[in-house]
């Protein structure tokens, strides 16, 4: 049952990520084409609730999605299982959340 729940969580986060990826790519192309400097970009993102939610959701979905995928690979390739496997996957999820969260805060908080 755990695997089924993880499977659903992975699909749902994929659903969340799809539009965010396109949004992210569009923003990058826009920023590069318009020749925005780092300072100009930060000027727009810092203090913006929208960008905080946009990239915050992104980081949240990526962390869940990726740690579930890595959990499967770890299980199949290294034979890790049970509590240890889940603990390692949870750690990966936490690390991604921490790193991503830190980046989001740096870019969007004032």
């Amino acid at each position, binding site marked *: *049952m*755990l*695997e*089924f729940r993880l*499977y*659903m969580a992975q*699909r749902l986060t994929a659903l969340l990520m799809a539009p965010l990826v396109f949004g992210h790519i569009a923003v990058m192309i826009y920023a590069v084409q318009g020749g925005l400097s780092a300072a100009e970009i930060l000027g727009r993102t810092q203090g913006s609730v929208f960008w905080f939610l946009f990239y915050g959701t992104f980081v949240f979905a990526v962390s869940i999605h990726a740690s579930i995928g890595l959990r*499967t690979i770890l*299980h*199949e*390739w290294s034979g890790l299982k049970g509590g240890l496997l889940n603990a390692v996957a949870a750690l990966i999820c936490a690390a991604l959340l921490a790193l991503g969260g830190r980046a989001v805060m740096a870019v969007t908080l004032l």
Partner: protein
Amino acid sequence: MDQKDNTLKVTVSRGTSGEQFEQEFEVPAYENQTVLDVVSWIQQNSDPTLSYRFACRVGMCGSCAMMVNGEPRWTCRTHVKKVVRKNTLSIAPLRNLPVVKDLAADMTPFFDKWVDAEGYHHPTRTRHDPMQEVTPNDEERNRANAGIECINCAVCYAACDTVANNDAYLGPAALQRAWTLYNDQKNENGQAILDAVSRDGGCHSCHSMGSCSLYCPNELDPMSAIAGLKRETAKNLFRRRR
């Protein structure tokens, strides 16, 4: 076939699980010859202690599957011509299963997993009821028909890398049977099937890479059957929440 081509060099895996070794045999080559013919020739002419399994020799019983040059095949219907490489053949017991002896794989885990996947008939009626009508052309029936010709040969099971890397995984044949029964009007208790295939090692462990469908000698498509189970279990989750 010219003169120097008329013998085959055959490497056969011998022994039991954990104590396997390879042995070479020279076997006369014929224009028309199956891999099972080659194995039988060795057993009848070179080494009567060679163990292997077959029954029907016409692709019905599913008992003769082996690894031939590293790929799972039904040996009674695999022509040597199709798989031979430079006059050599290597023949081994089916992958992903323990070995009884030589070329005979132990099918116990394979069939245990059919049962674990609820891959058996759950009747809707008793002998005292009238026969259940089956509508031949409806969508459900077609879905059931798609997998019904499975001969339990375990070729797909041997081809599946997920089976190789995840002991708990039920495998393509058992899951396809579960899907077939789920769609069969004569089968009751679809919920039990969905529950069984949703446990750890069930249909959600499949990576949809399709080796099963590529190698199935009956050209069945277990990968799509498993995709059907994934869809149904996901839908069922939301249905039950309501």
